[in-house]
């Protein structure tokens, strides 16, 4: 459990290759839901919860069912089945057990099955990890941390974007640029800022 690798993974998934801004995963809900801050935060929380849990389950399935019988080609099918069922399962349980929590982020759960960030995180966990300059095979803890980092990076980008978009109502945006086009241009500027992070080498 050496901490430095885990911190490296977290920093690299949140900043260096942020899931939305440099890997382009999870853009559909990013553009749609980031109109105001509260839904974005709860969406971010929901995504973080699901990516972390999904990374655990998909890692287990990949290493204990797919690899031994070399069925890598079933990776897409099994992962998306797991994520969809888990999201459905989580939605039912949270709706009953914690209605307050459900009000905050439960309603976003069906939105997450469609979200590319979750599936992207699960798929990336199966690739080779890439730390301190050399390729390192993934492990359970690494995929879990990467899943969490992915969710956190998603939430960070959502938060920044929703903060900007809320101020935007007071700004005088030309009619044709209203709403979606201006969001893309802001996202482009944010992605440029995040490019700055890609310089570091940990």
């Amino acid at each position, binding site marked *: 459990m050496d901490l430095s690798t885990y911190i490296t993974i977290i920093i690299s998934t949140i900043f260096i290759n942020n899931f939305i801004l440099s890997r382009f995963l999870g853009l*559909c*809900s990013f*553009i*749609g*839901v980031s*109109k*105001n801050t509260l*839904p974005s935060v*709860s*969406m971010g929380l929901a995504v973080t919860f699901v990516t972390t849990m999904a990374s655990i389950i998909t890692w287990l*399935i990949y290493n204990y*069912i797919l690899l031994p*019988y070399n*069925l890598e080609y*079933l990776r897409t*099918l*099994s992962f998306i*089945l*797991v994520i969809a*069922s888990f999201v*459905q*399962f989580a939605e*039912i*349980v949270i*709706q*009953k*057990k914690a209605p307050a929590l459900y009000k905050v982020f439960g*309603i*976003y759960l*069906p*939105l997450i*099955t*469609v979200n590319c960030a979750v599936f992207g995180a699960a798929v990336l966990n199966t690739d080779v990890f890439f730390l301190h300059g050399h390729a390192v095979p993934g492990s359970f803890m690494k995929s879990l941390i990467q899943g969490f980092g992915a969710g956190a990076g998603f939430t960070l980008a959502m938060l920044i974007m929703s903060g900007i978009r809320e101020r935007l*109502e*007071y700004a*005088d945006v030309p009619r044709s640029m209203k709403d979606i086009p201006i969001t893309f241009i802001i996202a482009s500027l944010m992605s440029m800022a995040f490019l700055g992070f890609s310089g570091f080498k940990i």
Partner: protein
Amino acid sequence: MIMRILTPVLAMAALGLIFGVGLAYTLKIFGIKLDPKMFKLISMLPGSNCGACGKAGCAGFAEALARGEATPSGCVVSSEEARRSIDLFLGIDYEVRTKTIAAFLCNGGIRAKNKYFYRGIKSCKAATLLFGGYKACSFGCLGLGDCVRECPFHAITIGVDGLPVVDPKKCNSCGKCMKACPKSLYVLLPEKCYYVKCRSKDTGAQTARACSSGCIACMKCEKACPSGAVKVESNLSKIDMGKCKYIGRCVEVCPTKVIAKRG
């Protein structure tokens, strides 16, 4: 060769079975009944949960529709007939919109202090460029009459207290004033309505310091309103016309007389 086909098929079928039974089992234990109206609404929506309407998926949008906060046209993905059927289902015909009139949301004017003495171009847009305008309250009206000039029906005149006054008979809610005002202080509200004549999201103390008649988020209106239509969010009280029963307790109770009654 056969084994290479059989093992994956059995493995995945087993996985599918486990998840199917698992879901059904959890539904049995944790399932709650969704009220039929919401269920019907959700089935009429495309169900793609894409979030393009800004709400949290279709369930969120259906809730907003039921509460009257959203209009079916908010759902970009659904086809025309789906939107019309939702309108009919909700019983409110959105095509013929209820008559709305522009309402002005600021109570400052001469009652709001100035940050600096402004001698620039007599236009709100120009004044806002200079540190958000010369009023101490950054949300407040500058009274330089952009909306007056913009209104094609001359329904807006500047009152004695330096604030624009909307003449309900002349206004036919074209929304031009909304675009003209750099502080977006205009909103289209039904003829008969209650609304808060302030948009300041600053804390109560800051608003009180900047203007003697702003909303200081004292929550009195929220507590006084019997029908729970008033809610104070980020230091600014908001009246939900869906719930409002036109009782008017909030107007009496408001210490700075910010809530206005119209019609």
